[in-house]
Every structure is written in structure tokens, then in C-alpha cells.
């Protein structure tokens, strides 16, 4: 089946507009706690999820909103969940890191690495109860350091489980660059487990679709798990209010909150030799500078697909975008009105 670029773009655009609305509502203080958005990784979910069928399962991490949305969970139910209301997807009990949709066999966890065992278990249930069905795990580069994920790779291989392990690699885990935390090469690592493994440009929804299509065929045919290594960025960094991105976005606040304690530490009379301190300072500066690439338009999966669609039919694109914006705007108004009714 060839991918429909319009459909993929529509999914990504809807996720983008929805999460941008979530950002505003969070910023206004109507959503509590942390907020990890999938802004920047939409193409990975869009390239895979439309290829799932009934009976397929999803094991998500703390960044599950785009996947839930694309699997068909109502945006209103998600938004009300984030707002902690009884009419939310999980009655306001879980929040954005703990989204569950039993009818779609979609479960999330805020524990890094937990998507691995969950996908293996969903895969086992598929193998025994639902022939030809698969499970898909989504996780970040940081999770590839979690023992339980690697144990799941092995379990899935030795049991030939129908699992697609998808690493959404944005090169960072909070403030830790992957190059300082992830040893070796992830493709080689997955292959060493005896697993089929592919690398793909996670900005390119069509490329993800192609790679996933083959991987899913492999898994559905009973040939065992596949590892998909998809590269992406996170436009908002790790979460809303990301400290490293804030250094440029809100310099005054950052100077007071984050830089000042470092300056005091740097000049403390008792500590390491100056060379050591300077190396530490250089490292922080380097990280602040290099994390800025997370926000680069070149990495934005929507901008990657949009120009081709615009060339093909600018009018259709404008209509598509307008109708999605309308839909989400309605969802937001409804969510806010419902909150008013409850207060």
C-alpha cells in the first residue's frame, strides 16, 4: 500500500495544532505538572500508526499524545484528561504521561524503558490470541540505556514476538546528549540481538511509512521483532519550560535561577582545580548552544512534507489546514466550557 501524503500530513498537522493548543493551556496554568509534547516527532507516529489494524497494540512512553491522537483517541478526551477532569480519557486520574485506551490496546508509562516489556507482552498476546497482529513500542534514545528495554529485545527475539521497537532518537535525554550516554551504534546493537534493524529519517513521514511497512510485514508474518531507529528533534526540548532552551528564550529568569548557582559554585574557594572547573563550564555552554538545533526548521517534519503538497495543490492544502485548525479550536472551546460548567 502506497502512503497517502495528504493523509499523513493531515495527521501530523492535527497533532501539531492540538499540541500547540495544549502548550497554551498548560502555560495558562490549567494543566498541572510536567508536559512532554511530541512537537517535532510527528512524522514517526504518522508513518506507522495508520498502518495498524484492529487488534494491534501500542506501548507508549511519557510522550504519547501524537500516537494516541493518530490512533483515533478523541482530542477532547485527551485535553480533558490533561486538565485533570472526570470526563477525561482516564477520568483525570492519569494525566498526559499515563494515557490508556483499552479498546485500542494502547498503554503508556512515565517510567523510561517500560514500553519495551509492555510491547513484548502485547506481542505475546497477539501471537497467542490474535494472529497477524503486532505491537509497537515507542521510546527515546535515553530509554536504550534501560535494562528492561534491552531485556525485551532479547525476549522478543527468542520468542519471535511480533513487535516493532521504534526509537525516536532526538539525540538528547533531558540535558544529557546521546553521545555521552549511548554506547556503540544502535543498529549494530539491535542486530547483535538477532533482530532485523533499519535506520530512517524520522522527519520524513513517507520514509518512515516505507520502513515501517516492511517491518510490519516481517513481524505480521511471524518472523520476529524489528527495530526501527528514527531520528527526530523536539521543538520544545525535553518538556515545556526546558531549562537549556530557556537560557536563550528567557535569559533573565535563567540567569537568576540556573546560572547564578553555577557561578557561585565555579568561584567557591574549595573545589577542583581551575582546569576542571573550566571544562565543566565549557561543557554547559556547549550544551546550551547545541540544544538550539532542536528547534531548527530543517528538522521540522511538517516543513519537510508541506512544500511538495503546496506545489501539488495549494488550495487543497489551505483548506485542509483550515479545517483542522477549526476542529481543534472547537475542541479547545468545548474543553474550556466544560471546565467552566464544573467550576
Amino acid at each position, binding site marked *: 500500500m502506497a502512503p497517502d501524503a495528504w493523509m499523513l500530513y493531515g495527521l501530523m498537522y492535527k497533532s501539531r495544532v492540538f499540541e500547540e493548543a495544549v502548550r497554551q493551556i*498548560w*502555560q*495558562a*496554568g490549567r494543566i*498541572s*505538572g*510536567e*508536559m512532554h509534547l511530541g512537537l517535532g516527532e510527528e512524522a514517526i507516529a504518522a508513518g506507522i500508526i495508520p498502518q495498524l489494524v484492529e487488534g494491534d497494540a501500542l506501548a507508549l512512553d511519557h510522550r504519547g499524545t501524537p500516537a494516541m491522537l493518530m490512533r483515533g483517541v478523541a482530542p477532547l478526551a485527551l485535553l480533558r484528561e490533561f486538565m*485533570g477532569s472526570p470526563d477525561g480519557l482516564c477520568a*483525570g*486520574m*492519569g*494525566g498526559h*504521561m*499515563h494515557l490508556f485506551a483499552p479498546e485500542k490496546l494502547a498503554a503508556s*508509562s*512515565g*517510567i*523510561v*524503558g517500560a514500553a519495551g516489556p509492555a510491547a513484548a507482552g502485547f506481542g505475546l498476546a497477539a501471537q497467542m490470541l490474535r494472529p497477524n497482529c503486532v505491537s509497537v513500542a515507542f521510546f527515546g534514545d*535515553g530509554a536504550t*540505556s*534501560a*535494562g*528492561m528495554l534491552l531485556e525485551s529485545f532479547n525476549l522478543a527475539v527468542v520468542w519471535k514476538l511480533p513487535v516493532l521497537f521504534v526509537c525516536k532518537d532526538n539525540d538528547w*535525554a*533531558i*540535558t*544529557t546528549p546521546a553521545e*555521552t*550516554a*549511548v554506547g556503540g551504534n544502535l543498529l549494530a546493537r539491535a542486530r547483535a540481538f538477532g533482530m532485523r534493524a533499519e535506520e530512517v529519517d524520522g522527519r520524513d513521514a513517507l520514509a518512515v511509512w516505507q520502513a515501517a511497512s516492511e517491518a510490519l510485514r516481517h513481524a505480521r508474518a511471524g518472523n520476529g521483532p524489528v527495530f526501527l531507529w528514527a531520528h527526530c528533534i523536539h521543538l520544545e526540548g525535553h*518538556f*515545556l*519550560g526546558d*531549562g537549556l532552551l*530557556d537560557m536563550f528564550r*528567557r535569559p533573565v*529568569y535563567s540567569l537568576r*535561577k*540556573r546560572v547564578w*548557582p*553555577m*557561578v*557561585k*559554585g*565555579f568561584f*567557591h574557594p*574549595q*573545589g*577542583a*582545580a581551575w582546569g*576542571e*572547573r573550566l*571544562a*565543566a*563550564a565549557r*561543557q*554547559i555552554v556547549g*550544551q546550551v548552544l547545541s540544544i538550539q538545533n532542536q528547534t531548527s526548521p530543517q528538522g521540522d517534519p511538517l516543513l519537510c512534507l508541506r512544500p511538495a503538497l503546496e506545489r501539488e495543490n495549494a488550495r487543497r492544502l489551505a483548506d485542509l489546514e483550515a479545517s483542522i485548525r477549526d476542529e481543534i479550536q472547537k475542541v479547545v472551546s468545548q474543553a474550556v466550557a466544560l471546565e467552566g460548567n464544573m467550576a
Partner: protein
Amino acid sequence: MRKMSFSEAIDDALGQGMAADPRVLLLGEDVQGLHGGLFLRFGRQRVRNTPISEAAFLGAAVAASMAGLRPVAEIMLVDFLAVAVDALLNHASKLETFSGGRWQAPLVVRTACGGGYGDGGQHEQSLWGWLAHIPGLSVVVPSTPADAGGLMLAALELGSPVVFMEHKLISSIWLDFLGSGGRDTVTFDVPPDGEHGRVPDRWQPIPLGQALLRKKGSDVTIVTLGVGVHRALQASAELEKQGLSAGVLDLRSVSPLDKAAVCQEVSRTGRLLVVDEDYEGFGLSGELAAIVLEAGISCKYARVCTQTTIPFARRLEDETLPNVARIGAACRKLAG
């Protein structure tokens, strides 16, 4: 006397300990950013970022401590300790016994705990009772900056494994990181005396296992720890206006547990109320009842604890965690 925040106090005391003893090092996820002051002061050898591999780095910290280092391993949130609990349950805590007293693991596990800021039930647990259940582990839960620093220094010097727990609601670093995310559109019920306060110019260790009577009372003894101390003090102030005198005993550590102080206070008032943010069943609150019973003290008993998985919804969360209203009602019922 200096004044500083709870989170500054912990890093400050840890810094004093690191300056005094080159074997002390801090390792954990993102510690170079989260504890940037220590990173820029002590550099990359002694403040080490780890991969998200708790089972590996906590287990490694145990062995490193057996081989001469004094690691402080940070498990970001105590909830995440679950993936690495083997290192504590089966190794650090058992070493001294297994080796016939010939080997110790002088390790500090530093971890943030507690709720009240809307992150949900997988990020806001307390779990100190669960950890203190294991023989061979000390579990420290400070409630003020002065205690936090002094207890950290004692933990560094103890010579056996200590879990040092910092409640996120009074730890401005964590609350800013996870709760507000830099927003000024959200507010939290932060106890000011927990978040900020006077600390000594130079830290002295506060021995583990010494409870502190925060307030004298003649009708009821509230035994508590962490943020519970501040909730109890507030409830006690309100009860006082109604003519009820409730004392507040701050345990400061769950293990070792200051049984003598608990028994002394409870035998005076004849009424024990435990305020414990950890889960109600099979934990600290039941343990305290057992202790007074074993001591032959006859008293009335009640507890205000967390009974269920902590809901994400803020309002439900506030009802689930011990709050001033529930503490006040429980005291009145005990005294009535």
C-alpha cells in the same frame, strides 16, 4: 547563621562533604545540570551524568562504595528506584550481615519524593516505609533546610547505606523543574518553613534516628515527617484556637526510628495521630502503633495517610495526600 533554601542546603552540605573527602562523588541522571553549582565547583570526575540505567549505576555505586569510594547516587525520583531496587534490597542492605560484619557499603542514595504539584501517581510517591522495611538501610526524610544539610552530612559519614529523601514540595529546584516549569500561572501549597530557613555557617552532622519535638502538646501527639510536619503544625495552630493542644514530633528518619521519643510523647498525651504521606497499609503508620503497643503504652490511635494511588487531578490529589483539614478532624475525633 545563613539563610538558604531546602535544596540549596542539601547541595551546600554535600559540597562541604565533597571538599572534605575526595572519595565522595555525585552520580546520576542529569546531575551536572540539576546540581550545576556542584558541577562547576568539582568538575566532571566528581559530578557524573549517567545514562538512564538505574540498575547499573546504583549497583555500581554499591560496589564502588565497597571498594573505597563514597558515592552519592541520585535516583531522580524515588518512583524510579523501582527499576533498580535490587541494588538496595539484595546487596547494599545485606552486605554487612553476609560478610559477617567484615564489609560495609558507605553509600548515599539521594532521591526526590512526595507530591502536591500535579505529576500523578508514578512520580509523586513517598515509599519511605517500603524502603525502611528492609533491614540494613537507613532512610532519612528531612523537613527543613537546617535538618536537610545536617542529615546529609551525617549520611555521608555514616559508613552504611542511607536513602536520603528530599520532598519536592519544599525543594525549589524540583518544584520548579517538575511543577511549575517556569510558569507563574500555577501555585502550590508550599510550607515556607520547609522551603527556606536558617542554617548554620558550617554544617555539623545531625545524628540519624533523633526525632525532634517541633511543638509541645498535651492532648494529642502527632508523629510525622517531611511535609507532614508542616501540615501538622498548621493543623495544630488551628486546633489551639479551639482549645485543643496537639504536639508535633518530627521523626526526621524512618530508619533508624526514634522509638524512645515516640513512646515518651505518646505516654504523656495518651493519644497518637500518625500523619504519613506514604501509603497507609503495611507501613510506617502501622509500625508506630506496634511500637507503642510493644512498649505497653495504652493510647488512642488514628492515622492520616495516603490510601490510594495518587490521582493526577489536582483537587483529588490534595484530598488524597494528608492535608490540614484531615489532620484537624482526626485530632478532634481522637480528643473527643
